[in-house]
């Protein structure tokens, strides 16, 4: 069986999935179906995990908050969800990308820096790349790995 392909998701995509955000969920759901069929792995940079845990909706108390925490943890523990640590080299590469592509937000640069790794072909973020902005955008170019 062929190894699954990989996508990098940032905070916005996870929110779109878990909150079933109108207009986004329909785009995201097929990825989960593919992942459950063993055809896809989803990479989540740990910078995005930090953002997810810090979102406004999780700061209160109550049944909805507890359930939201539970479903978030459930999602992050799925066998096809790979949390990515921010290590030395990745941080450097993200920094270079942030400078080279003019990306202002660190978390976006970290998500993009994952792309040159094995079988990571697509990045879904809400960031602006080369002047184009979209709620969900396919990264137009695969950045070259620094040698």
């Amino acid at each position, binding site marked *: 069986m062929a*190894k699954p392909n990989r996508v990098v998701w940032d*905070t*916005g995509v996870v*929110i*779109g*999935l*878990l*909150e*079933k*955000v109108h207009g*986004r969920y329909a785009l995201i*759901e097929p990825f*989960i*179906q593919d992942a*459950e069929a063993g055809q896809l*792995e989803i*990479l989540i940079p740990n910078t995005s995990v930090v*953002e*997810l845990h*810090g*979102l*406004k*909706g*999780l*700061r*209160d108390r109550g*049944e*909805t*908050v*507890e*359930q*939201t925490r*539970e*479903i*978030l943890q*459930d*999602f992050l*523990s*799925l*066998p096809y969800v*790979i*949390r*990515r*640590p921010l*290590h*030395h*080299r*990745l941080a450097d590469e993200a920094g270079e990308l942030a400078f080279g592509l003019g990306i202002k*937000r660190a*978390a976006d640069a970290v998500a993009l820096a*994952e792309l040159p*790794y*094995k079988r*990571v072909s697509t990045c879904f973020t*809400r960031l602006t790349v080369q002047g184009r902005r979209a*709620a969900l955008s396919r990264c137009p170019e695969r950045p070259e*790995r620094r*040698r």
Partner: protein
Amino acid sequence: MVMPDRFQIEIDETGDGVSAEVLRSQLEQALRFLREDPEAVESVDWKVTRARMNSPLMLELERKVTPGTAEPASRPGEQLARTFASLQRGEPLGEELSPTRLCAIEKMASQANGVRRVRIRAGVGASIELDPEWSKTVRQIREERKRREEIPPQPYSTVGRLEGVNVHGNKSEFYVYDPLTDQKMRCIFPDEILEEVGLALRERVEVSGITTFGPENTPLSMRVDSLRTIKAKEGSFLDRLEAAHKRAGVNLTGGLSVEEAIDEVRNGQA
């Protein structure tokens, strides 16, 4: 009309003929450089288009593109000559030169000596006589780059299936395949977590600890500080998500739009 990418190698041993071994090596290294071209495609081949066989021996190589296919924008033959020209002028070499290309340059330069003279020329440019001292310069650059690429041991964590537990010998170890690089990572663990390791065999685990890395960011081995078995729930996540929405709902954004919620968590303001 675009001039073809071509260059000459001239070897002069001030006698009758030149060493076949040196000729083979010069050609081999030059081709290593040319084929490392990031734009190299199958439609490109390098052919000997001119030759002078006695000392000084001269070979001219020219890039041939399959008829009907576009000429690549890159000109590796000229780049090879430019690299030697930079060395001749004592200029720094470009960062874009790959380790393979640097190695080829080093070996080509090392074969020139007081008796044997090796000259390179691209197109109609000036001939450049290789200096064996350049091989030392290039070696230093390669070693410096290698040092720069090395990642010191540092904290890392990864998720993968725990396999191959081995308690024979001084160090107890198991293996986890790093999901991103598909490389086997050796995990050395303390005896205190042996039972935990045994229970986690063939399970999906998250391991953390000080890790050493190899080339291309590949984690090689870890001294395990913590081990956690990841138990995924049974059944479809989408079904559980649907059920959660029907029960108490899921609310990460606290009533903000997705963009506002992310701005709020990143910048402290919606």
